[in-house]
């Protein structure tokens, strides 16, 4: 087993465990959010092992750094305690998630059965593939329309968030 494999299982395992910790932890919402940070950073490490450096950096910067902080502040805003979910409702939510999880797992297994991921070794990628230069050139030539649409999406997000949040502040 190479160091890469060991690291992959280490970070992959960490990501799975912390993701489970996030979902199953109903005692403490803050701890859930913090396990989400661990998940995001471990996923970033897995991307690094795949030599997808740009994706890894963005993963840690946006998901690890920004979005989880947003979740954290939402939790602080709502100040949820366990009391607000009575045990009966919790059981309902949990079983719903278990069913959804099993369904997704089944789908993944079926998909893998159709097209085994590990049957053929992946094709070699050209030099600099997924590097910032290639991504930049592709984004601002072929996909420039999508980038501009992303800016409109962000604009809509700002406006929508303000309308929702302002009502709460006033």
């Amino acid at each position, binding site marked *: 087993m190479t160091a890469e494999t060991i690291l992959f299982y280490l970070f992959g395992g960490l990501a799975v465990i912390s993701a489970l910790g996030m979902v199953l932890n109903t005692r403490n919402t803050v701890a859930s959010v913090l396990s989400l940070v661990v998940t995001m950073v471990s996923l970033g490490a897995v991307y690094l092992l795949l030599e997808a450096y740009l994706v890894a950096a963005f993963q840690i910067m946006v998901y690890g750094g920004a979005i989880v902080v947003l979740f954290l*502040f939402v939790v602080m805003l709502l100040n949820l305690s366990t009391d607000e979910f009575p045990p009966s409702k919790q059981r309902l939510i949990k079983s719903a998630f278990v069913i959804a999880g099993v369904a997704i797992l089944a789908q993944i297994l079926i998909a893998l059965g159709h097209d085994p991921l590990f049957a053929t070794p992946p094709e070699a990628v050209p030099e600099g593939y997924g590097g910032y230069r290639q991504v930049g050139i592709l984004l601002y030539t072929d996909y420039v329309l999508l980038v501009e649409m992303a800016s409109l999406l962000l604009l809509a997000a700002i406006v929508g968030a*303000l309308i929702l949040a302002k009502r709460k502040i006033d």
Partner: protein
Amino acid sequence: MDQWVAAAGFVAVAIIVPVSMLVGAKLLAVTAKSSSKLKTMTYECGEEPEGGAWLQFHPRYYLVALIFVLFDIEAVFLFPWALAIEELGGLAIVDMLIFVLVLLLGWGYALRKGALKWQ
């Protein structure tokens, strides 16, 4: 990849530094034989703490975090662009100008609505 492995070596050192300091402190630290409720009580200016500290916070924190996420995503779009200016030339700059102007529209809206004010 090699450079990333080297970075991992550095991060290993960054783990060792605080851990070794804590271990050193553990070896040297004195521990009182007895503890009391007063000693481990939460500090609140010498008074007995009034309720817990885990309280509800103002929505303005949430608003700041939200606008931060949006501009962080903008930065993600800016980085690949910033490094391709030489190759793409003027068109890329116009592309980004439109992108930035659309976002600044949102920024101006937030400013006018007073969302960026810490009242």
